[in-house]
């Protein structure tokens, strides 16, 4: 550990679990590829930095909209502003998927009572929700109603 590691970081260090990260990284590469340990560490640090960056921007997006809680929409907007717009579609899909899964477990499987959705119906329903969400997002991208004109240079 270099001295800078201790001096530079005032609060306790929150990082991502190495084992999980290593697994994710290795899954993305061919089976016989090795990853040097310092390269692994660097990848993890980059990821933490990514979270920091997007968090800061999300925080600003949230402030600009006069909201008090950072919501998924703010994060998505931040991703777009920072140049990670390509991620938005997949990120949103995962978010919607998670909501569906959570809903199902909370209602104790009431989804399947009576109005039994076939897989096609469920997929169609999902597509409808995506389209709605996209429409919402596109509407939002036009700019919120009361936006102070302090930093025009930050507008994308």
């Amino acid at each position, binding site marked *: 550990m270099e001295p800078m590691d201790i001096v530079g970081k005032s609060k306790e260090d929150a990082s991502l679990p190495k084992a*999980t990260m290593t*697994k994710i990284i290795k899954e993305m590469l061919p089976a016989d590829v090795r*990853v040097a340990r*310092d390269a692994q560490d*660097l990848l993890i640090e980059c990821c*933490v930095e*990514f979270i920091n960056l997007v968090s800061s921007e999300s925080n600003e997006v949230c402030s600009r909209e006069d909201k008090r809680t*950072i919501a998924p929409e703010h994060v998505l907007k931040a991703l777009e502003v920072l140049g990670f717009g390509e991620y938005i579609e997949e990120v949103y899909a*995962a978010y919607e998927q*998670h909501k569906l899964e959570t809903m199902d477990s909370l209602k104790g499987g009431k989804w399947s009572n009576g109005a039994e959705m076939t897989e096609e119906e469920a997929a169609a329903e999902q597509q409808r929700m995506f389209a709605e969400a996209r429409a919402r997002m596109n509407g939002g991208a036009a700019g919120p109603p009361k936006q102070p004109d302090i930093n025009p240079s930050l507008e994308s």
Partner: protein
Amino acid sequence: MRQAGTYSGLLSKMSGRAGTHSLPLARIKKIMKKSGDDVKMISGEAPIVFSKACELFIEELTKRSWTMTMQGKRRTLLKDDVASAVIATDIFDFLLTLVSES
């Protein structure tokens, strides 16, 4: 009574794509809170969005680093490969200081 967490954990393991939501949400939330001095409250759902975004980010960075490794005709991904990938990618500019320090 099933806990929501256990159930969705099971589902994500079954959902083909490995690694969905496998980054711990509490840890992500912690990092988010430390990212600035006056971070607002974070909705319960925001870390979920982050989890996926991180996954995509790591995927992109890893694959770009791997491209560098292949260019060097090696089978071991080195720290320099990560640095090269960062330098070569505009949206990774925020990482330039980090990779040059290490």
